[in-house]
């Protein structure tokens, strides 16, 4: 509905109302990290700049673009089920997705009860954004996505192919058949007692092939 339209139809008015509501209805958008804080909490936090300009109509009826407000201290959410989790710290400039909850979830994030109270009645608010560490543009090179990750669990099954049979730090090292034949021959020749059954050591933290963070 043009600002100067003195004779809007009912449809014009309804459309204008819907557009007005949509302008403040947060769903999902993209952003970049301004600051990232682990701060010892289970859920790290990040300050996010929304990476898309919004539009609004001025008093003169002219549409103008504007940079949206910074979203401070949003929770950053990683995949975590039971003892298994995937975590990779964010840095300033990283691309992220931002989802906006349909209700106030701040109390839920803080307390984690089965059923939580909404602290306010706000809906789809910019204040209820959560950050997902997903890159969204072609400007991020593929190589930048593959470094510095940590996978943590009581048991990790790596995939087939290049990673099949990969070891972990402190895994037991057992003698193979050739090594046993050789130590048996040494015992016969020298009379030195044979090695006890079982592991003969573990993977050293100095290993350059197996790493932990």
């Amino acid at each position: 509905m043009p600002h100067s339209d003195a004779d809007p139809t009912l449809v014009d008015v309804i459309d204008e109302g819907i557009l007005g509501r949509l302008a403040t209805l947060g769903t999902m958008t993209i952003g970049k990290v301004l600051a990232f804080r682990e701060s010892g909490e289970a859920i790290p936090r990040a300050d996010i700049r929304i990476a898309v300009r919004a539009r609004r109509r001025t008093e003169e009826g002219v549409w103008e673009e504007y940079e949206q407000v910074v979203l401070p201290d949003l929770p950053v959410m990683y995949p975590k089920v039971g003892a298994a989790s995937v975590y990779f710290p964010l840095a300033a400039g990283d691309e992220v997705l931002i989802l906006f909850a349909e209700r106030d979830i701040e109390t839920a994030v803080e307390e984690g009860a089965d059923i939580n109270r909404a602290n306010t009645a706000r809906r789809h608010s910019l204040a209820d954004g959560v950050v997902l560490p997903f890159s969204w543009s072609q400007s991020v090179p593929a190589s930048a996505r593959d470094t510095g990750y940590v996978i943590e669990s009581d048991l990790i099954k790596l995939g087939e192919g290049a990673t099949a049979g990969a070891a972990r730090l402190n895994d037991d090292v057992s003698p193979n058949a050739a090594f046993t034949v050789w130590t048996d021959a040494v015992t016969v020749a020298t009379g030195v007692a044979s090695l006890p059954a079982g592991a003969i050591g573990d993977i050293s933290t100095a290993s350059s092939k197996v790493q932990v963070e």
Partner: protein
Amino acid sequence: MFGNPDGGGLGLHVAFTTRAGDQSRPAECQVSVYNLSPESVGVFTKTTNLVTIRAGHASGGVRQVFSGNPVAGTLVRHKQGGDVVTKVTIRDGGRAYDFGRLEVSLSGKTTEREVLNHILAQSGLGEGHVELTSVTFPRRYVFSGTARRALDELVDAMGPSVAWFIRDGNVHILDKASKTPEEGPVFSSDLGNLVGSPEPVEGGGIRFKGLLDPSVRVGKVVKVESKYITGWFKVVEAAFAGDNFSSSFYVNVKGVAYAT
């Protein structure tokens, strides 16, 4: 100045009706000016202009009854007999209500007072009588949108009994059971400013008509003294009407009983 020539005006025929309530919708005033020159009509086309209605009876003095901004798209000019009538709607705080925005990003624990201060500073609205209920936003307060929606959300967080409204360009926030602190006028047959008899309305309130007293405002408590109904009433609706060519100036009030 279109009205009274004694007050430095043009002596034009001016009529008005206002309507104000204790809801967050701004109070409105329909103004009719007769035979306004085409050059002067422009004052009603700019939403940035402030139109003020001043009226009153000699006993109470002439004071501001209403002040607000023209609403875009409401200006109409038509012929009525031999006159050309210019009609426009003005709204109390209308410009801030329609176009006032809040763009704010506050990190950390934020109180309702901090949020209100930002709303007032960015919208241009003043602060009237404000009774805040403690509301804390523990991690952040972020808002991008109209100032009126920010006020809706803020007051909504204070509880269902709290309301906000604009009065004379100022935001008032108070419990629906509370009143603003100013002393209101007395309407009585003895004073001669009560027109007819007050009538009870559903829900325990009354409606009455009085001679126009510019001090009547929504949220104030007024006293009514009549043969059948006497007491203090909080004004929840106030409608002024006036016409300088007929010397007809009244106020219609809906009030709810208020224990002082």
